[in-house]
């Protein structure tokens, strides 16, 4: 190890809801914590979530994502957490006393030794391949959401939203709030994927939700000028005579998220395949610790869910890392049980139940791996 290398007791990669909450718990227990984030401001995707969150009072329900983000930042600041920004992490090296985390900043290579490492890298949007899908005007729904809610710019005026999960539904509504027209929200499955309350809002605003429909092409020379959609049969094959063209200038793609797991692979974590959580997931135990001792994972990297669960997982990882450092106070066990109770409450209902089962399967993999 280089002499004089920067050191921290807990290094967290990713300053979104999971990373910030992990930092708050670990720093609250007395650890010296450093967060590294590739973006130019912390908060992850919280600041574009201008809708009110669901859940109970403990889950900060009723509060908008952007407000929650601002509170978490205040808390990390008051606890003295160092946040390194504009710094993509590109290397992890096992080292005596922890893990060396290499990152780039201002065009230079830098490194920090973390006794414990928490990976909270989040998830990225899935793409969808269709003719014309590379034309300017086709974009991820998350991209459109950042543009309207954070940068306050409309990425287009006449939108077709593809995908009826919560991202598709919420972003469609937020595009309407920002003044765009959403011509249709289409969904290949025969039913709406997200919450009924979100779907009702956009229907009331006049946007039709067309289930059993898909996009067949985006048409245009230099950018999207119109969009062809078609009805689908029960085998997802195009129904003859149902194709039609919508005069849209923008296609937003909201077809799910995949965990950003590169660093967990690099660390050598064991993985399992759970489609309900977004694909390959690093195996972790009840403490959010992966199969590599001292390396934790929290938030969407362990399966795409919601910010509410990401925050709880982050807290758990932060508490567990502090405990492993010998810093935790007496209430650790109770705190962890309370968090699990809150997470289990979030993973109920017709949507949550599937995630609950998938997460239970993941914890089962951890027990198997530990044997």
């Amino acid at each position, binding site marked *: 190890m280089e002499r004089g290398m920067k050191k921290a007791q807990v290094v967290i990669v990713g300053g979104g809801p999971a990373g910030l909450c992990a930092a708050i718990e670990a720093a609250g227990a007395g650890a010296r914590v450093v967060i590294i984030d590739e973006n130019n401001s912390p908060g992850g995707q919280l600041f574009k979530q201008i809708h009110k969150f669901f859940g109970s009072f403990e889950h900060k329900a009723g509060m908008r994502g952007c407000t929650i983000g601002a509170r978490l930042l205040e808390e990390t600041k008051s606890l003295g957490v160092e946040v390194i920004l504009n710094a993509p992490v590109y290397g992890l090296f096992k080292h005596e006393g922890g893990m060396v985390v290499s990152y780039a900043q201002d065009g230079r290579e830098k490194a920090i030794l973390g006794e414990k490492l928490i990976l909270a890298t989040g998830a*990225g949007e899935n793409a969808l391949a269709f003719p014309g899908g590379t034309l300017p005007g086709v974009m991820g729904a998350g991209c459109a959401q950042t543009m309207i809610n954070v940068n*306050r*710019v409309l990425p287009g005026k006449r939108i077709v939203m593809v995908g009826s999960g919560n991202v598709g539904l919420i972003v469609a509504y937020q595009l309407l709030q920002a003044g765009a027209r959403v011509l249709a929200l289409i969904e290949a499955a025969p039913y709406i994927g997200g919450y009924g309350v979100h779907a009702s809002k956009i229907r009331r605003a006049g946007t039709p939700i067309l289930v059993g429909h898909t996009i067949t092409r985006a048409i245009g020379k230099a950018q999207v000028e119109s969009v062809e959609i078609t009805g689908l049969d029960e085998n997802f094959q195009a129904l003859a005579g149902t194709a039609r063209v919508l005069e849209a200038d923008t296609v937003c793609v909201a077809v799910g998220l995949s965990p950003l797991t590169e660093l967990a692979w690099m660390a050598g974590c064991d993985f399992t395949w759970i489609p309900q959580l977004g694909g390959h997931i690093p195996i972790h135990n009840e403490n959010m610790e992966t199969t590599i001792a001292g390396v934790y994972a929290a938030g969407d990297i362990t399966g795409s869910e919601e910010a509410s669960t990401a925050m709880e997982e982050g807290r758990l990882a932060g508490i567990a890392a502090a405990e492993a450092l010998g810093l935790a106070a007496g209430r650790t066990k109770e705190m962890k049980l309370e968090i699990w109770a809150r997470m289990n409450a979030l993973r109920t209902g017709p949507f949550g139940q599937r995630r609950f089962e998938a997460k239970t399967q993941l914890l089962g993999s951890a027990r198997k791996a530990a044997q």
Partner: protein
Amino acid sequence: MRVIHHPILPDAPVPDCTIYYDGKPIPAKSGEPVAAALLAAGVRVFRETAKKRRPRGIYCGIGRCTDCVMIVDGQPNVRTCVTPVRGGMKVQTQKGLGEWKEG
């Protein structure tokens, strides 16, 4: 188009500087992503692919897909969705892979 008034959010700040898109001045806000200033000015084609000269614009908006790269102040392959605006910046449509300057 900029979203100044919003039913939930406070009024957005207005442009405070100018950047140059292929030589043409466009209003921008310091610190906003270059891509946002271009979209606000109605510019959606950011580059042309190397082999087939196909147009590309912003796609992921978080610096991962690199579809929005342009030549910024002479440097090619700059991700405009995560590059903050500074007044006076020169932004050019990138044709192909771009050329790196020595040194």
